């Protein structure tokens, strides 16, 4: 269980990091919190020749509010998202999702950008990004580009990031005041990866019906997916337990390739999807009521 040999670089600026990545090519790997990469090295599932530690780059760990958008640097530690007052006030969904990510000792090192770039299909942040329609800000040798979450996650551990590119920040649009949110998952222990999970957003019209719904599933397919049929079943409807039950039943339509492993079979995961969706919808409706 010892990692194979590699070289270690700790650039002090983003440009320097991009230069090292360009020079070293596909054999170089960025190192953020290391909470997924170091286990992969120990298990020898990855064999990069150079690790480029992003921990020394100033400016990658900033959190700010820019007209209606929470901008979080890729190197913001998960533990900070859990506790930062700006997040608690403007995007409590992100703080709540963070509490489901591993354990405190993992979150003390793990970063937002690392989780998104790693793209574990069972991870919480990718589903949060997908539900909120976040934009992922990427820097590469030819400059900066911005990719919407729905185009970023391509498959298990596969994203739109090309070799030599770095995720630098995430732009989360803040939901309107008439929006409630929920997140629910089933995992074997607190902190374990989800066997099925759902992130929901419900926007309510003045007449009390639903004008917009977003449901993102994680832990069930090869990447986070939006449950579009379930979302459509909610729009125009009153926010009642019956509507939620009917919509939740349609959530499995979004899953074409269900995940299956020793922790949960495909059949089991599919069966609990409607349960987590309903719980997350009820949580969203409760938060709406409280406003």
């Amino acid at each position, binding site marked *: 269980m*010892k990692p194979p040999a590699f070289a270690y670089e700790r650039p002090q600026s983003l440009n320097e990091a991009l230069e090292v990545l360009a020079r070293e090519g596909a054999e170089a790997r960025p190192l953020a919190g290391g909470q997924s990469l*170091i286990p992969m090295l120990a298990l020898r599932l990855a064999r990069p020749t150079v690790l480029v530690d992003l*921990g020394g780059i100033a400016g990658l760990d900033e959190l700010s509010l820019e007209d209606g958008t929470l901008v979080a640097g890729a190197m913001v530690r998960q533990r900070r998202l859990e506790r930062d007052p700006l997040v608690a006030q403007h995007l409590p969904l992100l703080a709540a999702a963070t509490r489901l990510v591993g354990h*405190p*000792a993992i979150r003390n*090192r793990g970063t937002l950008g690392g989780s998104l770039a790693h793209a574990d299909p069972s991870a919480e942040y990718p589903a949060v990004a997908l539900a909120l329609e976040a934009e992922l800000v990427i820097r590469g040798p030819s400059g900066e580009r911005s990719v919407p979450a729905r185009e970023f996650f391509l498959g298990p551990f596969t994203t739109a990031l090309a070799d030599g590119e770095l995720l630098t920040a995430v732009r989360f649009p803040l939901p309107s005041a008439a929006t409630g949110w929920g997140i629910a998952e089933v995992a074997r222990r607190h902190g374990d990866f989800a066997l099925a999970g759902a992130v929901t957003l419900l926007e309510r019209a003045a007449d009390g019906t639903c004008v917009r719904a977003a449901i993102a599933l994680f832990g069930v397919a090869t990447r986070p997916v939006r449950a579009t049929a379930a979302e459509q079943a909610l729009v125009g409807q009153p926010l009642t337990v019956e509507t939620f039950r009917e919509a939740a039943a349609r959530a499995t339509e979004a899953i074409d390739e269900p995940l299956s492993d020793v922790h949960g079979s495909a059949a089991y995961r599919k069966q609990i999807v409607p349960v987590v969706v309903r719980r997350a919808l009820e949580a969203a409706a409760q938060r709406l009521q409280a406003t």
Partner: protein
Amino acid sequence: MERVPITVTVNGRRISAVVEPRMTLADFLREELGLTGTKLGCEHGVCGSCTVLWDGAAVRSCLVLAAQADGANITTIEGLATDGTLHPVQQAFWEAHALQCGFCTPGMVLTAVALLAENPNPSEEEIREALSGNLCRCTGYQNIVRAVQLAARHERAGT
């Protein structure tokens, strides 16, 4: 591979060393510094037995490279007792019979120290949540939870 110079403070002592990039902080503590109180169970982040404090926060020393620890302030289980007096959390683990083989104990104790520093009066639920990443194969956890409750009471009472 080119070795990396680092300076870390471990249990209050400043140490300069040159490490191989692939050396984890856990191996650095155990093999270079002889601090074998930090245990290695799984070496890939799932058992928590290698937990140490990094600037006061719990981290898994098998999931950090020694090279990354340059400039950090690390506390291991060896750094908790002062002049032969056990730290209140260690004392509580002893009193509440919170260990059997003791393999998980350093990680449990340090995780509890970090929890109580932040939350001096945790509920049982919060204690269980904080310890959920640390595996124990012997005790069944009940007495570990009790020990943390006892330590919290002692620390609040200032004893």
